[in-house]
């Protein structure tokens, strides 16, 4: 089977982002961009399933501006067979992303779609669930273990109460949690090889996706700062400080 993997480009997780003083956005010019960490985990899982013989082909999908192609090459260097770049200059909502994936699902007919559980920029945690709903297929979110056999996925999910295991008929949508795997590093020869792997570029407008966004972001602000703290010298002082605040 084929596996489609969502591969979003986001501000690197180590960057301390700055909100623009006029409240129109966050500063992204000259800031390091990387693969969304959960998407690297998604790609790693797809590659492992291919290595186990469960899948034949792994396709990375990115939605974004023209220069996203270079980012998709990283996914190819990590081991994906090919890439699909859905090109759009506009930021897309999770619903638009899900509708776009649905179009690709219809043409590619994958057995599995693996997405990250959330992107670390918008922290929405929606796209995988929305795709599963629109596709009318199972979803297994926050996956920390995936086993595929007999046309079914058995997935362990990280939920608030502990670890839940569910069984889902394929095709299905899986979203990855942090502990699913440790993504591999890209090796130099693989970067060279990735240059000859195919990238299909499709204009979002040509897919017939309704890209209307009924949620508008009107203002960005820095979070309120906590007031400066104090240092204490030993356990006794700490206990005294907490007792003074009525906390112990």
């Amino acid at each position, binding site marked *: 089977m084929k596996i489609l993997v969502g591969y979003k480009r986001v501000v690197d997780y*180590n960057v301390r*982002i700055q909100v623009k003083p006029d409240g129109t956005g*966050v500063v992204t010019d000259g800031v390091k961009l990387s693969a969304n960490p959960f998407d690297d985990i998604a790609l790693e899982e797809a590659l492992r399933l291919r290595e186990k013989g469960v899948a034949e082909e792994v396709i990375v999908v990115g939605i974004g501006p023209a220069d996203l192609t270079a980012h998709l090459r990283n996914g190819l260097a990590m081991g994906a067979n090919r890439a699909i770049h859905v090109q759009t200059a506009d930021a897309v909502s*999770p*619903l638009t992303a899900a509708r776009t994936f649905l179009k690709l699902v219809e043409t590619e007919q994958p057995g599995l779609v693996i997405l990250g559980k*959330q992107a*670390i*920029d918008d*922290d*929405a*945690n*929606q*796209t*995988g*669930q*929305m795709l599963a*709903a*629109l596709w009318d*297929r199972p*979803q297994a*979110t*926050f996956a920390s273990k995936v086993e595929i056999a007999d046309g079914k996925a*058995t997935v362990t*999910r*990280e*939920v*608030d109460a*502990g670890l839940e*295991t*569910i*069984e889902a*008929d394929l095709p*299905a949508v899986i979203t990855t*949690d*942090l*502990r699913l795997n440790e993504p591999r590093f890209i090796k130099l020869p693989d970067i060279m090889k990735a240059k000859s792997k195919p990238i299909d570029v499709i204009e979002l407008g040509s897919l017939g996706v309704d890209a209307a966004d*009924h*949620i*508008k*972001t*009107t203002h*960005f*602000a*820095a*979070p309120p700062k*906590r*007031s400066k*703290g*104090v*240092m*204490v010298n*030993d*356990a006794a002082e*700490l*206990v005294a*400080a*907490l007792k003074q*605040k009525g*906390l*112990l």
Partner: protein
Amino acid sequence: MSKILVIAEHLGGKLNAATARAASAAAAVKPEAIDVIVLSDAPDAIAAEAAKIDGVSKVLTVARAENAHALAAILAPQVAKAAAGYTHVFAPSTTFGKDLAPRVAALLGVSQVSDVMTVEGPHSFKRPIYAGNAIVTVEVDAASTVVATIRTASWPAAASTGNAPVEALALDVALPSHTRFVNLQQGKSDRPDLQGAAKVVSGGRGVGSKENFEVIYRFADKIGAGVGASRAAVDAGYVPNEMQVGQTGKIIAPELYIAVGISGAIQHLTGIKDAGTIVAINKDGEAPIFEIADIGLVGDLFKILPELEAALG
């Protein structure tokens, strides 16, 4: 006027307190009605608890054998059908709500507002992005149903002195059989629930081992606190994943948060920023945790924690 449907979260026949927090956010919209929907195989006891939540107009129960486990693929079509006539659908921003609400939103053809921190108006909300390093104001088109998850750390639980009527709701919805529950492995703990605890003690990589985590548990028990952990401590296998606090774990707002042996990565800080008082105990005086701590103590946790216990008598 707004009419809000709040999706009740429950487990083992008991209502989760996150539901009453979502009800507080619903009340902030100043709606004409707040109805709570309980989907379960046996909803009566849960519905009785939900009926007590202040501000709730009525509780709707959907009793079906398929609702025995909270599978989003099973619940979403029922919630989407029940949502007719409501202007808003709210769920807590727990793993339950995060799994279910976007599936409902997609069925209704709308995007979702994730992690609502404040309600600015019936269609205007504030939510965090970039691990809480920016707060955005979002406006939802007034003609669309608002589907939102509620950041539980931002809202107090509504009091439970109410007495709303309970009504059984019959929904004619065909349910899929493609997704099935297998089992749930729950960490056993008689400590206060992490997301509801007034005090939380968390350990990080500095604790060093699973065995050493006993000192964290012992101190937490001494002060009646819940126990959390950083990602590093979970990844190292010191504690189970459901104890992780941070951007991708639990977001909590206890009155007192004591971080022990935690350096304070951005992703951890986003989980505790709304805590009342943050205490950091770390041997590295340069650790970023001290930038947001209200009270800091530099030193060896293995020396300090026993001293704290002794000082408490």
